[in-house]
């Protein structure tokens, strides 16, 4: 392998977003014909690096050089990177569900005679590609009738049809079951034998160890190390060490209060299935939350933590639920988020912009939305009381906005998050679920959010904190549950919890 040519070399890549340095002097080199895995925690910069490579972040928006086949490349768009033979397959598949497999495979590169599409040639070519990825199916099948695993393979077939030189797969196995995973890895192995070079981003260390020729570890936007599997450098221990090897900085404010042993929320034998497909989302989960504690829910993205929170919070996804939920000793069935709010549970979503805030409305309207009764007499809103309430939260949470009449969409991420928290505080819940409370906000704002959380638990509120940032989980929680593939993989008292232990549990299932 040592004599092989470098097909790709990315040198000193630095990419800044407003206020955040996402990549800093990253170096990444891939040899021809190898499978090169890219690992790192959530937010380490893997996806950003691949977006720079594929032209999503165009030339000029980053610094550093990209060499592909020993020539410097300046990709201005995905079309440019595709032209030289780089194909990227994202986690969210880019197939058109209502088109057939063969239409999808040649979409954008249709085979034509004159201005007519030559469907016979198209189908022949598609079948050839399907054979390469080991898919034995009728190419006239609609994509929406295929499972995720097969869709993934159709995506790869689509990439292969374009004479791809470098295939990038962004967490391809995240949504796959074990059989599909095995199958996919076998196919990648087969492609390697045919000389296709592949970059694989993955959280599942077992599969990395199984298939990688080399592994590059990223952490906090920097290259930590590149390990060579053929020299025996790749093991679960070494990978975890390099992924998390960072001191926990002292950005977590201390809190000191007597914790009660009173159990506030208890969930047992909790199962959830998707109504349409019957896919099992949550499997036999058991956990409890005591009064006045912060319980951390750690795990990788897609492990089922958000699904768990939503299934408790009135089940807006309409899962088929089984199991028991007790709040303050009383068994509860919530048919709508409204019921959960009434009973004393609040849920601040991970996706502020998507389903947390009404971005076109102003700060005060967002803060009062979940509890309009609190500022209304006989269902008539008291506009003055509303401004007063909003100003109180503006001061208490230090929301930086010119006025509470400012449209929320114009605020920074940290301040939007505070508005989202304020909205749920105004409901005055017993249990507050915070899903990724500090995602996408800067360190200063993080510290403020942590301080607010401490004040709340000191007053007796209980907080469930879902977080993908291990230092945050360790710094803020009283207890930690680790979720993996829809199961509780383990519970750790904070004294015993380490990043390594959590990572091991999170990648276990």
């Amino acid at each position, binding site marked *: 392998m040592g004599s092989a040519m470098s097909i790709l070399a990315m040198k000193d890549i630095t990419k800044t977003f407003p206020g955040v340095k996402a990549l800093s002097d990253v170096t990444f080199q891939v040899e021809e014909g190898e499978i090169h895995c890219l690992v790192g925690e959530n937010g380490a910069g893997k996806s950003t690096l691949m977006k720079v490579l594929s032209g999503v972040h165009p030339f000029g928006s980053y610094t550093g050089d990209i060499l592909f086949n020993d020539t410097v490349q300046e990709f201005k768009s995905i079309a440019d990177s595709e032209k030289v033979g780089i194909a990227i397959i994202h986690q969210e598949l880019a197939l058109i569900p209502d088109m057939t497999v063969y239409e999808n495979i040649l979409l954008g590169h249709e085979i034509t005679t004159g201005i007519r599409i030559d469907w016979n040639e198209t189908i022949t070519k598609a079948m050839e590609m399907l054979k390469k990825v080991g898919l034995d199916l009728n190419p006239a099948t609609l994509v929406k009738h295929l499972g995720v695993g097969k869709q993934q393979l159709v995506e790869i077939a689509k990439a292969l049809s374009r004479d791809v030189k470098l295939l990038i797969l962004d967490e391809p196995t995240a949504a796959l079951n074990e059989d599909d995973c095995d199958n996919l890895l076998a196919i990648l192995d087969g492609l390697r034998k045919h000389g296709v070079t592949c970059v694989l981003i993955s959280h599942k260390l077992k599969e990395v160890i199984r298939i990688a020729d080399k592994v590059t570890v990223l952490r906090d936007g920097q290259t930590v190390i590149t390990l060579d599997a053929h020299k025996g450098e790749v093991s679960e221990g070494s990978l975890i060490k390099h992924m998390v090897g960072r001191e926990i900085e002292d950005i977590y404010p201390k809190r000191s209060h007597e914790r009660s042993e009173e159990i506030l929320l208890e969930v047992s034998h909790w199962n959830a299935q998707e109504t349409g497909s019957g896919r099992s989302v949550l499997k036999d989960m058991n956990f409890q939350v005591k009064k006045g504690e912060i319980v951390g829910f750690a795990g990788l993205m897609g492990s089922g933590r958000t699904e768990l929170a939503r299934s408790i*919070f*009135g089940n*807006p996804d309409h899962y088929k639920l089984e199991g028991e939920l007790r709040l303050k000793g009383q068994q509860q069935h919530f048919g*709508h*988020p*409204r019921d*959960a*709010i*009434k009973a004393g549970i609040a*849920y601040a*979503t991970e996706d502020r912009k*998507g*389903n*947390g*805030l*009404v*971005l*076109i*409305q102003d700060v005060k*309207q967002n803060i*009062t*939305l*979940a509890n*309009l*009764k609190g500022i*209304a007499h006989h*269902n*008539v*809103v008291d*506009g*003055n009381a509303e*401004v*007063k309430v909003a100003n109180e939260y503006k001061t208490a949470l230090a929301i930086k906005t010119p006025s509470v009449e400012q449209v929320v969409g*114009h605020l920074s991420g940290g301040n939007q998050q505070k508005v989202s928290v304020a*909205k749920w505080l105004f409901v005055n819940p017993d249990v507050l679920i915070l899903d990724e409370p500090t995602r996408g906000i800067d360190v200063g704002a993080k510290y403020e959010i942590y301080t607010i959380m401490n004040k709340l638990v000191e007053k007796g509120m209980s907080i469930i904190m879902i977080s993908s940032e291990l230092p945050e989980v360790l710094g803020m929680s009283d207890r930690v549950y680790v979720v993996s593939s829809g199961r509780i993989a383990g519970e750790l008292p904070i004294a015993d919890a380490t990043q390594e232990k959590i990572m091991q549990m999170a990648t276990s299932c």
Partner: protein
Amino acid sequence: MIKEFQKVLRQNIREYAMYIALFVIMATFNITTHGVFISSRNIANLINQTGYIAVLAVGMTLVIVIRHIDLSVGFLAGFLGAIGAIAMASWGVSGPLSVVLVLVLGVLAGLATAFLVAQMGIPSFVATLAGWLIYRGALLLVTLKTGTIIIDNAFFNALGNGHVPDLLAGLHVLEGVHKLTLLLGLLGICYFIRSEFKNRKTKQSYNFEVLSGQIFTIKLVFVSALLACVTWVLAGYNGISWTLVIVGVVVVIYDFITTQTVLGRHIYAVGGNPDAAELSGINVKKIIYVVFGSMGLMAGLSGILFASRLQSATTTGGTLFEMDAIASAFIGGASAAGGVGKITGSIIGALVYMSLTSGMNLMGIDISSQYIVRGAVLAAAVIFDVSTRRGRK
């Protein structure tokens, strides 16, 4: 003071622009028609013609706010008007009772649409397109034998043509002027001034920012003068028409609901971000039922006003009303992206739209050119709306 004036203007440019546009259109027509346009008689006519579109535009505004559309309401209005006419002519139902009947049927029709949209998950465009066809067919069916149905009921016909009687006609001052209208106008101005002062006082008691004394005075004088002008013009003909009273009541109720109540807030939140609304404990399906139910109610009312205006139900009643209502709402600042749109805006939109029709009719402009002008105004209004919104970001 000029600085504050500029600030107020800048902050409310979108809202004021519509009033300014309406003013410009009216002034222009007044010149081109040599004063006929703002004659008492024409204004009274204009208001009565706008009525049946205005109530539809009010209902449509909420439908657009929650990101839906209703194409069926034009023929629904025509069909319900015909049902009302038949009820009075053939079934011997009294005028007031047939009004109630039509309104109830309207709500039921709206709820049926809501069922398709909320429960069955059918896009509102398709569901109401089906309704458009069905109600059109239903209208033809019920008028098949008789053709145009003449309405012979004084109460019913007064709704679209009659005026509030001048109870003060006995007083021998200001002969030839509708004195009750003047009195009501005066009371209206007093109420406006009183509520503005009250509002200002509450705001001050909370230590909120209020307009400076000078600007506040200017506002009071300006709006009062405007109200006085309108009152005077109306009093010069037959006074306040029943249509104006009905539209006024509808606007006041809907404006109150949308701006002051929990229900109103829920409607706008659903329009702004349905997922966030659902997670905030709002029952999105219920809101869809309420909004389409209200749309049906307004379609019934529109049908009554139109049939009453013509004193008959015709086989083509309600044709293209839905498009006029949709155009009015968009001219009035509603956004197809949802969450944005005011009742007062849509009323002004309807007035702008109907003023164009009325003014061009007076000028004797050909109907073909009229459509083109109306289309251009709609496009211009939305372009202005989109660009001011973008400019603010």
